[in-house]
């Protein structure tokens, strides 16, 4: 018995030693890069990082997947608070403000100014809205996206719709026409718990994300009520499909349903284009979010930041080298081409790989066309909580729990106001 135990322990230990990563420290600067991209996009990031590691022999980037934006964001917050923040992280843009306000981000300004190969000004101004905090360069655009409308071209054609709905009325009509309760199919599906889509519709109804003073929501009026009413109307039409799950889980559940033909029109990030187009057994169409009174685009996606405020000067320089590499035309172009994210500069847009994929995937650059419609976003420490715990929640209260849209917008306004007091 004793011997058996000893043998087992010895075997376990041997296994542990044998599988120990054979990574030897050969004098390179090793930096951690945390990201939130799984699957194909994650593989693409790994590929890009591998190329970076192979391209020079001074810096080694250790690429670590941390779960989706919420899970990853939670991990990052816990790590930063314990002084273990990663040297480089990809974070969801609305969370940048929180860290910037806490002074947790490395100021990249001196490195950017000293860099002769990479000019920050070459990046589109539209994607630089979460980059300068108090005059400091704290983040660079990475996987930037806008919500767009995807539709099942075959199903819409069969119902007599030759082109994508352009406004809310057409959306409602197309959704109703492609709904079939007997087959269990719905015209339209939206992850209503993710406030991004509500805000996107609200903007087209003429609202603003925040008011002029920047201390409360900017849709405490008709514009805030209208999208909720639209959804309620579609529920009474029987054409609105609500996916299971919370937050990002509801997004992936929705994409599964779209692919399976359960819902024919959906709203998702432009970054999902390649994945949806490649996996759907029908032709996938992409269009702008239908408008009510005006076109508008709400930015989303992620930026790159560094929590390396305590790193050595040499390491900080290495952080910059990697971050500017990620933003350089060819790399950003490759990333955008493989996903549907925005090419962040003319250099990325015109890169060979992007142009090549654009020829294959006609809607790949849909987000580029929306750059001019980008709206101003709040950039502070409180917005994350506002969009998740207040806007996201009250949207669900209306759609799921039967609260009136007027009451919901009123409650959003009150609670947001309290947070800013």
């Amino acid at each position, binding site marked *: 018995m004793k011997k058996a135990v000893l043998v087992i*322990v010895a075997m376990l230990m041997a296994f542990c030693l044998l599988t120990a990563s054979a990574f030897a420290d050969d004098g390179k600067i090793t930096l951690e890069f945390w990201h939130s991209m799984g699957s194909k996009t994650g593989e693409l990031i790994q590929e890009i990082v591998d190329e970076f590691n192979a391209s020079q022999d001074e810096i080694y980037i250790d690429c670590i997947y941390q779960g989706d934006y919420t899970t990853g964001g939670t991990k990052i917050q816990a790590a930063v608070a314990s002084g273990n923040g990663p040297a480089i992280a990809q974070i969801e843009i609305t969370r940048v403000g929180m860290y910037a306000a806490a002074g947790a981000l490395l100021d990249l300004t001196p490195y950017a100014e000293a860099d002769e190969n990479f000019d920050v000004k070459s990046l589109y101004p539209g994607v630089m809205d979460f980059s300068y905090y108090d005059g400091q360069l704290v983040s660079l655009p990475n996987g930037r996206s806008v919500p767009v409308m995807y539709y099942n071209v075959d199903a819409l054609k069969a119902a007599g719709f030759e082109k994508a709905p352009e406004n809310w009325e057409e959306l409602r009509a197309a959704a109703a026409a492609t709904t079939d309760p007997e087959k269990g199919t719905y015209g339209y599906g939206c992850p209503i718990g993710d406030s991004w889509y509500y805000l996107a519709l609200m903007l087209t109804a003429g609202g603003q994300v925040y008011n002029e003073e920047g201390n409360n929501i900017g849709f405490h009026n008709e514009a805030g009520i209208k999208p909720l009413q639209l959804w309620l109307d579609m529920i009474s039409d029987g054409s609105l499909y609500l996916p299971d799950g919370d937050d990002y889980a509801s997004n992936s559940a929705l994409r599964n349903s779209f692919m399976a033909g359960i819902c024919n029109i959906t709203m998702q990030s432009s970054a999902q284009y390649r994945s949806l187009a490649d996996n759907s057994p029908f032709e996938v169409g992409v269009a702008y979010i239908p408008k009510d009174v005006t076109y508008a685009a709400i930015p989303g996606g992620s930026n790159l930041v560094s929590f390396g405020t305590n790193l050595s000067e040499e390491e900080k320089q290495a952080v910059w080298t990697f971050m500017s590499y990620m933003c350089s035309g060819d790399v950003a172009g490759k990333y955008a081409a493989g996903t549907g994210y925005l090419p962040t500069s003319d250099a990325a847009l015109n890169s060979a790989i992007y142009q090549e994929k654009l020829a294959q995937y006609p809607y790949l650059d849909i987000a580029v066309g929306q750059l001019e419609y980008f709206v101003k976003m709040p950039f502070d420490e409180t917005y994350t909580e506002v969009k998740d715990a207040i806007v996201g929640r009250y949207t669900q209260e209306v759609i799921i729990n039967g609260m009136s849209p007027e009451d919901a917008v009123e409650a959003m306004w009150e609670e947001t106001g309290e947070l800013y007091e």
Partner: protein
Amino acid sequence: MKTTKDRILNVLDILGKLIIIVIMAFPFLWMISASFQTLQETIAVPPTLIPGQFNFDNFKEVFKTVNVWQYLRNSLIVCTCVVFLQYLIIVPAAYSLAKIDYKAKPLMFALVMVGQMIPMQITFLPIYFMFSKANLMDTYTALIVPFISNPFGIFLLRQYFMQVPSEVIEAAKLDDASDIKIMFKIMMPMVKSALVTIGLLSFISNWNGYFWPLIMTNKDAFRTLPIGIALLKDADSLQRWNVIMAGNLLLVLPMLLLYILASKKIRNAFVYSGIK
């Protein structure tokens, strides 16, 4: 001679038990089946019970998506260390509570009881702050040390030790045996079954644990298997249930095998833990 009524009752009895068995076992079979299905099969209506072909593509995908070997290694290190290191702590403590008289004993015993009563779901935030300050986040220490003073283990061992007649100890003392020697050479062999019980329980709970490593680890280098496998679920822009189930099967299989091999022993261990 059996009556008709008795026969009917007997059939109903068997039927009822079979229903229970199906309810309890089917999800596992479903998981195994799904691990071999293709993505299309997982979303097909009606559901696919037997996959079209058996290959390990989904498992390969799991290994490609997350760092399974690393997680497995971490889980084994943590489980093994907790199981064996705890004996060094709890055996002396239980011995001292069972066989030695000293003033602070009631207080010490109360401490053990409090430790047993307070779940880690209450203490995790302060411990997180403590480990943060001490720079112990993302270390094996953070995953192992909080579990080695296993209060249930102390409690159980103490009861076993109390049943060992004092004469045995007195006799050993006359032979000039030290406390250490008495504990490890004389007492421990006498309570082997309790030690196995404690070891099994802490191995199982640490293997399955999700909450604690979720809070204490942020890096692949220290993530345990449950954390890594849970990452699979949102590692994809689509829900690839076939791949997710294959990953979960990797997490479940070792426990299932252990249970099949030692089902009686494991159940007895849990009865001890439940009844105290």
